[in-house]
């Protein structure tokens, strides 16, 4: 991107993570993701490209969304421009572009709503900030609604709970409806429909990968830990982001789940039909596509005859699973009612730890001085356990159980106040690297503080997007690329498998 010129992350890694930038109007105007090719739009039921009557269609679609989504209707009316949200978005903190202030981002849609759907906007557009829908406005939408990672940090602080994620989802839905889709998200959703997962990993390759992992674990521990796929009658269906089959540190996390499940003694399986927990239908605000993707999980669970559904480490996938799955694909009367549907792998591991069923050698993680990055969709859009805030306590409890050196980052940037990694919400694509690097700045500063104060060397996360994003941006800010780890990678390092090789053997077998 042309904008990616002068920003040097290393110059910005020290400082208050929540430091207010000077306003730089238009700084990120040029940031745009690649548009989707016509066939990628059409595969999801959208027009291939912008139609001549796009304006009428866009307004009509906004009208439909107002009728079908209370949040959108209430939020477009309720903002009083108090300014409480203006310093809350990590993309604003990182770029200084005022259109990245949540209220200003919302206003891009709100001014159109006012012009076409409110009396005051029809009569006195200038007075109330109403504007005609033009190509310039549409271009602004495409740019700035793709600078929102739908992390909901603004909604936490808004006196009315106005959630910019709802607004940007609606805007993206409207853009899709008129043929202005985004390549990254739409292409990936197409792959889920045609192949079964975001990465386009076919069943045969998946089986090979899993067998390879079984061999690796056996070599390391002497125990044959299975990673079963499509196994009829297993108790648990594990649905995990496909990055877990593919990249580091995701894969190390998958090995961790497998070891925990192995030790639990409960039978489990992956599914080739639902070999993906991610659901990019949420990012593009399309309830239809989100439901279609979510139903694969129900179908896989029914076809395999499982009793429980467990979800792997993935932020937005956990939001869709925890908050939406029951609505989108329920009721799950065919599953075991003694367990929540679905369960997070962290809940599963935590329960076993509480029951004393897992043995750990914490010293295995002594090389790690750890902190934990709360992923936004887990933090502000879901829960774990049966108490409010379990989504913060459970992963930390797991990390403290498996390692000796754990330190939280500053209280104002963790738990529900957490800062986005900078790559969420369908923005994890190379052409947006400038935005991603700048958006990561607040989190990178918080990590730098923890490193300075506590000697923190590594940051654990439970989100595939966070992990992929950090792998890219950590080196830009002067950290080690591998400073980002999976929570279950730490579990995997420390867990002592029943019947595993004694320590001496392991060491000789290591090299």
């Amino acid at each position, binding site marked *: 991107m042309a904008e990616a010129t002068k920003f040097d992350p290393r110059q910005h890694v020290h400082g208050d993570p929540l430091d207010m930038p000077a*306003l730089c109007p238009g700084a990120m105007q040029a940031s745009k993701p690649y548009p989707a090719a016509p066939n990628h739009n059409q595969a999801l039921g959208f027009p291939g490209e912008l139609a001549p009557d796009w304006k009428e269609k866009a307004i009509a679609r906004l009208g439909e969304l107002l*009728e*079908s*989504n*209370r*949040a959108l*209707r*209430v*939020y477009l*009316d*309720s*903002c*009083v*421009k*108090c*300014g*409480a949200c*203006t310093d*809350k978005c990590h993309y604003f903190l990182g770029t200084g572009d*005022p259109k990245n202030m949540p209220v*200003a981002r919302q206003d891009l849609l709100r001014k159109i709503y006012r012009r076409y759907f409110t009396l*005051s906007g029809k009569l006195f557009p*200038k*007075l*109330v*900030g109403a504007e005609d829908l033009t190509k310039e406005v549409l271009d602004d939408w495409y740019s700035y609604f793709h600078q929102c990672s739908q992390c*909901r940090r603004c*909604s*936490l*602080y808004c*006196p*009315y*709970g*106005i*959630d910019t994620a*709802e607004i940007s989802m609606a805007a993206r839905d409207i853009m899709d409806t008129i043929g202005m889709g985004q390549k990254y998200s739409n292409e990936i959703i197409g792959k889920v429909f045609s192949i079964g997962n975001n990465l386009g990993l076919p069943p045969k390759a998946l089986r090979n990968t899993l067998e390879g992992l079984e061999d690796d674990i056996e070599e390391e521990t002497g125990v044959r830990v299975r990673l079963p796929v499509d196994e009829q009658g297993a108790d648990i269906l594990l649905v995990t982001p496909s990055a877990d089959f593919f990249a580091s540190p995701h894969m190390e996390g998958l090995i961790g789940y497998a070891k925990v499940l192995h030790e639990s003694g409960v039978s489990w399986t992956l599914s080739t039909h639902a070999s993906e927990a991610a659901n990019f239908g949420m990012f593009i605000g399309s*309830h239809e596509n989100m*439901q279609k993707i979510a*139903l694969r999980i*129900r*179908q896989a669970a029914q076809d395999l005859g499982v009793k429980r559904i467990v979800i792997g480490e993935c932020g937005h996938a956990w939001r869709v699973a925890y*908050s*939406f799955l*029951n*609505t*989108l*694909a*329920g*009721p799950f009367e065919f599953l075991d009612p003694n367990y929540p*549907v679905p369960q997070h792998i962290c809940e599963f591991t935590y329960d076993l730890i509480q029951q004393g069923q897992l043995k750990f050698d914490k010293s295995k993680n002594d090389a790690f001085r750890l902190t934990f990055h709360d992923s936004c969709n887990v933090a*502000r*859009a879901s*829960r774990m356990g*049966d*108490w*409010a*805030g379990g*989504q*913060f306590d459970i992963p930390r409890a797991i990390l403290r159980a498996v390692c000796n050196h754990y330190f939280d980052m500053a209280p104002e940037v963790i738990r*529900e106040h957490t800062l986005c990694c900078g790559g969420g919400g369908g923005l994890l694509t190379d052409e947006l690297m400038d935005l991603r690097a700048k958006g990561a700045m607040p989190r990178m500063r918080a990590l730098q503080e923890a490193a300075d104060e506590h000697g923190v060397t590594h940051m654990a996360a439970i989100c595939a997007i966070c992990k992929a994003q950090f792998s890219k941006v950590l080196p830009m800010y002067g950290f080690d690329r591998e400073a980002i780890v999976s929570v279950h990678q730490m579990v995997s390092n420390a867990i002592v498998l029943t019947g595993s090789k004694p320590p001496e053997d392991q060491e000789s077998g290591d090299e």
Partner: protein
Amino acid sequence: MVTLVYATAFYAATALLVLGLARKIWLYARTPAPLKIPTTPAPLTRSGAGFRVAREVVFFESLFRSNKWIWLFGWIFHVSLAVVVLRHLRYFLQPAPAVIALIQPLAVIGGLGMVAGLGALWARRVFVARIRYISGPSDHLMLALLIAIGASGLAMKFFAHTDIVAVKAFFLGLMRFDVQTLPDDPALLVHLTLVLALMVIFPFSKLLHAPGVFFSPTRNQADDSRERRHVSSRLDAAPRRA
């Protein structure tokens, strides 16, 4: 003549306010909330969620976490406004309840607090660059209108007294459809004209945050999606098998 104009205007403005608000509330209530979207950590029960909304309404809980200055000025303004509005009930109730009589001494503080709070909010709107950026003409005008209402009311208290017995007779008369003479003091007429304007603007402006806060799904939904299946739209009717 003045009496007739204001009587008609108050009937019209009241009708607009009530019907306009009722329409909006009906729209909010009727529109489905297709998915569970409480901002977490959220209360696990519906009563807990109700309590959360109550805390937002009474204490501005989220705003307090967000920005102490906006919270302070905004809260002072709203609480003062509440006191002032309660005090004005004496113009509509005969006899005025004891509570209303009791808070009369607070009213001057309320009036001053209202204007001071609004003034401070306006100063932020002008002097804080990022808030200036998001402010449009209507945002400034709204503050001007509210300050003018407060100032004209205080002016009657301190400088240009009006015949409040006659004012009360006028409003009690309006409520019985029996129009009584309204004093034609300029300060009173300015005050009432501004209030009329506020009543008309209310259902068409950002003042809709007042009903809106009760309908905000991120605040009024309980975090119970696994325990209680949320059903509210056509998503429920979609076939479970492709």
